[in-house]
């Protein structure tokens, strides 16, 4: 059973008896998770008033802690239940801007510097293997994303950032393969969610395919990567990437990594399945679904968990990797 708690003025309150629906959402392009819930409200003398306010700490637990964040928005409509929108602590990194000048600083050091300034606790930041040499003036989360993008372009490794139990983790994406399961009843066996897919949808397109990459620097082409098989089958789809002087040594790597990323049929799929708390955007699921033909490893682009009336389901937006 999921339990929702609020903490304000050093008092922890178990909100669960008054909670209607909880939705928990994460997206691969956003740092941080959102949690929305509504609380029963009535002006009779029997319905307790929950001590929840803007800025209250909210914790969602099942067996373990799943979410920790703060109330950002409150909406009241007459005698209807009160809606609350919460974000985890990445909210501060998404909303605050900073000015930083990094002179040949290691990627992970640059990120640590910013997080320390905003007092965001660090869980783990893996070595990124790149050096940052740039001036930034934007939201902290955008700066982190830009650093991770650079790391991906230069090393070909994708990194994911996320908050867990109030701490920030930056980890390699391929390490995030998960098995999601559910139980039909409390004492029942664990069943793989993939066996109970509802409304599968699969879209394949070459709209965003690029099967030839040209990298330019100093106004001339300095590296090229092509996938001849794809060109023969689908025609030439070319992308040009312009490099700054300092990146020129990486030109060949960058061309190949871009080709790896763009030289494919893009597939966007979505499914609805019974819920598993460990499913978050950025994780990878193994899916075989014969009706729409989904097969293989899928990256979870976005996920919306809905917990209501003791039932937990989730909607997954997927991308083939």
């Amino acid at each position, binding site marked *: 059973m999921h339990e929702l708690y609020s903490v304000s003025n050093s008092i922890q309150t178990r*909100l669960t008896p*008054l909670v209607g629906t909880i939705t928990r959402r994460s997206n691969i392009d956003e740092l941080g998770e959102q949690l929305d819930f509504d609380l029963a409200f009535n002006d009779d003398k029997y319905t307790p008033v929950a001590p929840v306010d803007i800025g209250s700490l909210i914790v969602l637990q099942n067996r373990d802690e799943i979410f920790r964040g703060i109330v950002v928005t409150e909406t009241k409509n007459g005698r209807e239940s009160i809606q609350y929108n919460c974000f985890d602590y990445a909210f501060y990194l998404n909303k605050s801007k900073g000015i930083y000048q990094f002179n040949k600083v290691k990627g992970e050091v640059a990120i640590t510097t910013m997080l320390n300034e905003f007092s965001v606790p660090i869980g783990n930041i893996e070595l990124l293997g790149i050096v940052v040499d740039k001036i930034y003036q934007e939201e902290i989360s955008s700066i982190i994303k830009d650093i991770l993008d650079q790391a991906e372009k230069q090393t070909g490794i994708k990194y994911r950032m996320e908050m867990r139990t109030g701490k920030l983790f930056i980890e390699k994406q391929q390490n995030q393969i998960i098995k999601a399961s559910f139980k039909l009843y409390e004492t029942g066996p664990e069943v793989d969610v993939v066996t109970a897919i509802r409304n599968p949808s699969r879209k394949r397109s070459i709209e965003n395919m690029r099967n030839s990459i040209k990298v330019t620097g100093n106004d001339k082409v300095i590296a090229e990567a092509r996938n001849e098989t794809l060109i023969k089958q689908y025609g030439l789809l070319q992308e040009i990437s312009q490099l700054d002087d300092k990146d020129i040594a990486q030109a060949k790597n960058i061309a190949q990594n871009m080709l790896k990323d763009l030289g494919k049929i893009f597939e966007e799929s979505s499914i609805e399945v019974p819920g598993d708390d460990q499913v978050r955007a950025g994780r990878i699921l193994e899916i075989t679904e014969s009706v729409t033909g989904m097969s293989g490893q899928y990256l979870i682009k976005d996920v919306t968990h809905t917990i209501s009336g*003791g039932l937990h389901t989730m909607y997954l937006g997927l991308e083939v990797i």
Partner: protein
Amino acid sequence: MDIYLSINNREQVIRLPVVPKEIKIQSDMDNTTFNTITLGDIKLIGLPALKTVSIQSFFPQQEYSFTRDKTYKGWEYVEIIVAWKARREPIRLIITETPINMACTIESFEYGPQDGTGDVYYTLSLSEFKFVQLEQRSV
């Protein structure tokens, strides 16, 4: 067997003068059918819904030998229940010689005369009321 209705810890109690022919408590579950693409429908077990009960009988305006309680007459009962509704408080339903004892809300109360006897026929629909308390502790 007697049926008692009361409000606010027996501040006011009525014993139904005529016990209905039958009384059944409806206790549902809020389960969901999840339509999967490979297994077809599967059932996801939800939580118990609120119990409901409907009482259909009449409040006698006339003297009958079988009347169990003569404290009030026909329309006086109606007045009491209508006043309870306006208080926006749960009431308690107790059926003696059964384990039934539950806090209820009045969902609907339909009443009126019938067949010229002057007795007030009614249907009282009740729904279970759960008292909610928020557990708190210092952290």
